[in-house]
């Protein structure tokens, strides 16, 4: 083993120490904290802002004309570790290709963000929506329509 710098922690160890003073010191510390600023927030009335990189509910992006950017290449589906994406591609005669169906199973998804990294068209992204609830599992199979507007699924209380 090479030369290492070592700290002996047992210098802090006191077999026989004072009994009461350390306890009081601890109490003074907690008392001081009692008057410090609160760190908790009242959810869902109050929310904290999430980071720009937050990996929440997916959005399928659209271009200026409101068309999906996605070309149904399937890269996102193939990289997805829990296999949460499935789609049916469709190709028109002119060569335009788009997804006929596009489902993301939001319960299976682990929000790793690999799909947005893989997408060659920058067509899918993970948004800052993190609290969405629903009654059945089928409701959480997001289709194209739902994936276009993830903001609608922010939990609003009750």
């Amino acid at each position: 083993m090479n030369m290492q710098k070592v700290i002996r922690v047992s210098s802090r160890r006191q077999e026989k120490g004072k009994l009461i003073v350390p306890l009081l010191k601890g109490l003074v510390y907690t008392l001081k904290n009692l008057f410090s600023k609160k760190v908790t927030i009242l959810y869902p009335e109050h929310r904290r802002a999430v980071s720009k990189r937050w990996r929440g509910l997916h959005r399928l992006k659209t271009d200026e004309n409101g068309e999906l950017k996605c070309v149904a290449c399937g890269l996102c589906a193939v990289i997805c570790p829990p296999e949460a994406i499935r789609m049916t591609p469709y190709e028109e005669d002119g060569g335009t290709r788009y997804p006929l169906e596009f489902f993301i199973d939001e319960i299976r998804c682990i929000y790793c963000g690999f799909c947005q990294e893989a997408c060659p068209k920058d067509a899918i992204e993970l948004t800052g929506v993190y609290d969405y609830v629903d009654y059945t599992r089928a409701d959480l199979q997001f289709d194209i329509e739902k994936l276009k507007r993830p903001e609608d699924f922010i939990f609003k209380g009750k």
Partner: protein
Amino acid sequence: MSETKTMTINMGPHHPATHGVLRLVLELEGETIVNATPHIGQLHRGIEKLAENMNYQQVIPLTDRLDYTAASLNNLGYCMTVEKLMGIDVPKRARYIRVIMSELARIMGHHLWLGSHALDIGAMTVVFYAFKDREKIMNINEELSGYRLTPSFLRIGGVAKDVTPDFIRSVREFIEVFPEALEGYHRLLTDNIIWRKRTMNIGTLSADEAMSWGFTGPSLRGSGVAYDVRKAFPYSSYDDFDFEIPVGDNGDVYDRYLVRMEEFKQSLKIIRQAVENLPEGPVNVDNPLVTNPAIEDVTEDISALIRRFKIQCEGPTAPAEEVYHAVEGSKGELGFYLVGDGTAQPYRLKIRSPCFLLTSALPRLIRGHMLSDVIAIIGSLDIVLGEIDR
């Protein structure tokens, strides 16, 4: 003539103090433990087997779920093993970001240990303070990676994205405020007579014995062996940083506590050096086999597009070789043994979990102690079942 009978009781798997789902079958004589048998496997998700059916990149999120208290450290261990197998050299900036992430993860893991360990023994306040400070690191994780507990931020050959100015600012802020919080933990526990009575000379293990049980990490250092993978086999630029290894002398619960408390400080020291000396440059290796071409190139250049398809669909292939690489996890030496077979999927991934070996010594440590000491001993080993059961 009266006859003494022992009583068998079941502790766990749903006992909050067993740090997950550890089941202990205890044989008691009065309140003294004569025998203990740990039962594990309740959290088995088959991560090693799952990895065999995924490509090398897809395994990264799985490793987050090993020791979920310090997720980035597992990412680091796994990614470095794959890089060793594929012979990839990671750029310096990425290595520094990885160091910052993993030391933050170590502090996060120790926060959870401190909070729950103190809570188990009966000091309730500490858990709130520890979690309050842990939250700050979670926010840093969120800023950088978009996820709080399981960032999955490391990639083969680098990290997912470059750092943001906000990230640097919040790490600096954390470095500023954390020493005071640490002093607060010390004030609550270190000299406290109840804490000392509950932890001193409990669960003592000598250096030789700790080594023969295969202990690593803070639990080994508490027994007085200065073995730290970061120093013994430096990886990911750890030799650039100046830090010390805390070691104890007595090998009891209290010394293991002191070692971890000092590790907070040393991790902070490493983070400070890494943030202040963060080199410029790319955060991903420029290797056509593993680097995802940038989105701008993909739209203009057909060969970049094809390469992107190749990397994402098939994944980078590894040669038919086997490697072992270990990193210093927050619980001990976290090793990955990886066998490649020339395809894009691991042939075998074996995880050397430090907690598994710590758990194997539990019966030895518990025997002869009181029932209430069991919790103190489990807490001081800082085991996490996600890693044991895998």
